[in-house]
């Protein structure tokens, strides 16, 4: 069984305020990579292919994925700001080329929280999908997968036939730490770089992001000398009394 894991490079969500945010693999996608590795380790998968779309800068996250244990990686060389539909169309072409039995990916990226690509990809391919998954088991000689889905009402267990799209939720697993031996092995693993033209897919975003603004910053407070002063200022400046 071959598993394709699409992953996105996002600014580190755990970087402290003020620190120059370095890029990391989207945490939900990292969970998908970890799950693919576990499936391979229990002998149910033979190859894990990672794919990401972006400029050469994302090679660092590709190396992290390879260091975790992904067998080989593909970078679709495209530095445009693509929307979920464009991404899904590129991935569909790649899925057709690679012919995996399972596409395993994060339920959403933590930078734009779109939560669309897995679903759109399933739609474009006409494949079944299991989203927000917290447990995966393969059944019937790996022709079907039984997936537990985290919903507001509780855990829903569904069975889908393969090939299929599975998107991962937070509680599926805890991704492993990249070890030095993993890092060394990753140096010898291939990264294929290919662009949309070579892949034969012509995409342009249908959505345009107009602006991104962070919430207003809280300014420092002032220390007052007395309760009288507080009352005065609440009346005159804040006008709340």
């Amino acid at each position: 069984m071959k598993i394709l894991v699409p992953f996105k490079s996002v600014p580190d969500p755990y970087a402290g305020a003020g620190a120059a945010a370095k890029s990391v693999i989207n945490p939900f996608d990292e969970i998908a990579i970890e799950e693919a590795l576990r499936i391979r380790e229990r002998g149910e998968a033979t190859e894990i292919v990672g794919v990401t779309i972006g400029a050469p800068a994302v090679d660092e996250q590709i190396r992290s994925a390879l260091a975790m244990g992904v067998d080989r990686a593909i970078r679709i060389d495209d530095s445009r700001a693509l929307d979920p539909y464009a991404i899904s169309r590129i991935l569909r072409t790649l899925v057709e080329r690679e012919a995996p039995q399972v596409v395993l990916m994060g339920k959403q990226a933590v930078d734009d929280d779109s939560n669309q690509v897995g679903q759109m990809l399933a739609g474009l391919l006409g494949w079944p999908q299991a989203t927000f998954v917290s447990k995966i088991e393969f059944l019937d000689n790996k022709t079907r997968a039984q997936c537990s889905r985290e919903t507001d009402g509780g855990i829903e267990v569904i069975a889908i036939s393969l090939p299929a799209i599975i998107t991962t939720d937070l509680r599926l697993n805890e991704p492993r730490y990249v070890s030095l031996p993993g890092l060394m092995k990753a140096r010898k693993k291939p990264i294929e770089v290919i662009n949309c033209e070579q892949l034969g897919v012509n995409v342009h975003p249908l959505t345009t992001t107009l602006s991104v603004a962070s919430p207003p910053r809280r300014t420092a407070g002032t220390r007052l000398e007395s309760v009288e002063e507080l009352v005065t200022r609440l009346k005159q400046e804040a006008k709340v009394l």
Partner: protein
Amino acid sequence: MDFAWSDQQRELLDAVDRFASEQLRYDMIENDRNAVFNHDAWKKCGGFGIQGLPVSEEYGGLAQDPITTVAALERLGYGCKDNGLNFSINAHMWTAIIPLVYNGSEAQKKKYLPGLCDGSLIGGNAMSEPNSGSDAFSLATTAVRKGAKYILNGSKIFVTNGPIADVLLVFASTDKAKGAAGISAFLVEKGSPGLDLSHKIEKMGVRTSPMGEVFFEDCEVPEENRLGKEGAGSWMFTRSMTWERGCILAASVGTMQRLLETCIRYANERKQNGQSIGKFQQVATKIVDMKMRVESSRHMLYHCAWAAGRRKAVYLEAAMAKLQISESWVRCCEDAIQIHGGYGYMTEYEIERELRDAIGSKLYSGTSEVQRNIIASMLGL
């Protein structure tokens, strides 16, 4: 001369930085007080690849050259405040793994190195005895051949990792009349008949690194566990001791760097007489001296490792690096306490522990006096 790291070295060192700061941060005050060895952290380091850094890939290591290895250990010391764990790891690497790498038979290397690299086995070195310390080769422990076995009798003291060791490299005399040329080395496994590892020794610093006395009472060691030839013990010891001196304090350079940064932060934050204490010249000078010590220590460490990687003899360089780093480390800790005033003396501030951890470095792997003897002799004195 090129002082730049290659991309591959930088990638590896960044990974160690991240590993140490994210995976090896835990409460040290309680662990130090109760002298707790962190087994879990040891295993994590093994899984991550620390112990196997200098070992070739066929035995489960990462085949890194000496300079990359010491730089990685420096990062470990920077990110992980458990100086005892760092010391146990370094003792394991330089006094057990390295002698095995250089002198082990194929069968011995296959048997022990993969486990010593991946964290499943703990190694140590038993040379010092109650009556032979600096004059190590005057040891009294004996090994007498009996068929396909050796029978060991005697005792060892100050054995780092002794109480938790799976395998110890033990030096004993197979021929008293030959003196140093009659010393042989043995890989003695935990559980060997007649071996007693149960006597722990309580100490001032690096308290989270277990230390013990080791007793041999007609202890049986199979012949295939002799390391190297009979009588080659003192030669092997001198050779691996050069590695040990040059590298065992790599983590301490990182520790000093962390202390320096802590002191700079504190000197900027702490105000007296309406200004940051760092503005007082006497405080600033201490920090400047600290910086000078860290940098000179780092350069001597790197230079020694660089030369060792080019297969040059580093007998002198290793002694100088050991002397410089250990004495700088102790001075840095003293200054760090002074800069922190009364707070620096209090357990909660975690600086007094650093001084206690540092002081032993002037004793193990050859005392400062012994390093000075070596340097003097290399200068023709």
